[in-house]
């Protein structure tokens, strides 16, 4: 029974309430860092770490925090973990840290994290909060990777990940559509994906 609920909390964040495509949360980073797969995966790793840690802590202290000041307390907890992940990235993957720029720090105001803290971790036990955090992060990563996949293929004519060239398309490789790397391309890809999901109804239960 417990395992069943664990899986239910985990899978709900991936498709049925996907943070980006269904709830339209965390749009700022999903547009800004989805230009290539490296940034998308780096950002997802950051969100996974922060969401997991903040959900665990918030769930553990949920009975101690007075209701009046809960939001500031949550924000400080989240900001602490964002600082930690920022320092870790700066030390071990400086190039990724450079290309993510202020968007890594801006995880602190990402609605997904505060949203999960407020809606789930502050009301449920630690184990289910872990499941919830994993689900929402995987859903976020999936969304970011899908968007980055299309933007990178169309915008650079090929796909490469952390320095490895996976493939280069014949014609597009020579004449990439730079438009998709630029900001308007991000809006276009997300808009079309949202319309596609709405039309086919794949994200419904």
């Amino acid at each position, binding site marked *: 029974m417990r395992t069943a609920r664990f899986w239910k909390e985990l899978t709900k964040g991936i498709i049925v309430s996907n943070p980006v495509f269904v709830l*339209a949360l965390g749009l700022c*980073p999903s547009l800004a860092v989805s230009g290539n797969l490296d940034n998308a995966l780096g950002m997802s790793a950051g969100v996974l770490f922060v969401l997991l840690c903040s959900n665990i802590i918030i769930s553990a202290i949920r009975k101690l925090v007075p209701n009046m000041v809960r939001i500031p307390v949550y924000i400080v907890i989240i900001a602490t973990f964002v*600082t930690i992940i920022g320092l870790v990235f700066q030390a071990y993957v400086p190039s990724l840290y450079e290309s993510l720029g202020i968007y890594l720090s801006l995880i*602190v*105001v990402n609605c997904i994290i505060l949203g999960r803290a407020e809606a789930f971790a502050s009301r449920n036990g630690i184990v289910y909060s872990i499941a919830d955090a994993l689900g929402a992060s995987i859903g976020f990563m999936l969304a970011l990777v899908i968007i980055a996949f299309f933007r990178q293929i169309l915008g650079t004519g090929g796909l490469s990940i952390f320095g490895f060239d996976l493939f280069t398309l014949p014609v597009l490789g020579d004449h990439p559509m730079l438009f998709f790397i630029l900001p*308007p391309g991000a*809006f276009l890809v997300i*808009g079309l994906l949202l*319309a596609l999901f*709405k039309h086919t109804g794949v994200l419904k239960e």
Partner: protein
Amino acid sequence: MNDNLFVVFVTMALINNFILVKFLGLCPFFGISKNIGNAVSMGIAVTLVMVIGSAITWLINHLVLIPYEIRYMNIVMFILVIAVMVQIVEMVIKRTNLTLYNALGIYLPLITTNCAVLGIALINDTGDYSFWTSLVAALGAGAGFSLVLIIMSGIRERLDTADVPKAMKGLPIAFMVAVLLSLAFIGFGGIV
């Protein structure tokens, strides 16, 4: 230095427009921009918080964080300052101008989690801007933010009556509008 301030303003407002080029503050952009009145109020409130926030975070950064070499605490400090400041602005507006307070309604507390406000504080920090440059940058970013919010709300008021394909209704068509606006703003790239 004086002529540079104008360049900073134009860069922040048009070339590096917060919504369309830097993707900061998208939640109010898609969530709130449904009528022009709300867009104007939201724009003014966010600009106000951004300018005051930049001033306070600059002072904290240069009087506390840098002298004591605890710059890595900037995110925690900035978000606390912003949260406290939004509360104070909310109380001041409530006492002095009740009509404006009612017009802004729920949007006021939500400014705390608006990426644009923390974004400008972090940009000022990473760019090592001087005090006045920070203020002008915040003012420019706020002006650009308000401009796009108002343009978008005007377009969306008309979209309500337009015949949009079923799958594109709501958020997808708003994204399509954003594509065209963003493309237009990319065109400002060469003016400075």
